[in-house]
């Protein structure tokens, strides 16, 4: 298996919004810096605002530039709804 396929799991809290996006962004960037892709476990998260969506998109762009993967798992109906409305649902791989 090539290196790009190794995924480190990162578990989100119950919300990804204006109040915690910086920490989440820093954490995900840290994993990407180490050369690993990220499996974002969203099973506890039922709220994502536009600021949270920006973190996901930014992570995807940075990962892609490094040849790494961002994969989402356990997305709730509430999060799925916002991702559908904004067209973000098609940007990611799901596990």
């Amino acid at each position: 298996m090539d290196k790009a396929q190794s995924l480190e799991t990162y578990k989100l809290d119950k919300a990804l919004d204006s109040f915690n996006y910086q920490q989440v962004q820093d954490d995900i960037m840290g994993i990407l810096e180490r050369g690993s892709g990220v499996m974002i476990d969203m099973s506890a998260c039922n709220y994502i605002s536009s600021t949270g969506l920006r973190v996901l998109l930014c992570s995807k762009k940075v990962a892609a530039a490094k040849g790494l993967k961002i994969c989402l798992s356990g997305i709730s109906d509430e999060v799925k709804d916002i991702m559908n409305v904004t067209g973000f649902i098609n940007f990611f791989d799901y596990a």
Partner: protein
Amino acid sequence: MSTLHFQPVKGQAREILDAILQSPEVTSCNMKTILALRLACEEIVMNVMTYAYLPHDDGWLDVHILKTDRITIRFEDGGLPFNPLEQKNPDTGMSWKERCIGGLGIFILRRKMDDVRYAYENNRNILTIEKAFT
């Protein structure tokens, strides 16, 4: 009807948002409506934090919350004139490579509310959102 007055607003985003969401008009809504209101109010409060006031100005924000057959929340601030509804909508059909990181908040706000209105009157930005019960 609840009327909330916040002064200063700088650095108070969390407190302001929590106070709105903890008003009896909001807490008595169903979960789906509360979620939509949380999204809308987060965008609006963060906009006030970011655009309304100059760095040296602590600023103020009044929030009026009315519940009838629908919930109406009116935000009034004394900051610089700023109409968030003039922002261009993102193209939701674009791929992730083309999508830029912005313009999403107001788009979500419009999609989640039944009505969003902006006016600038008496040196106040007045943004009103309405959501009927589903």
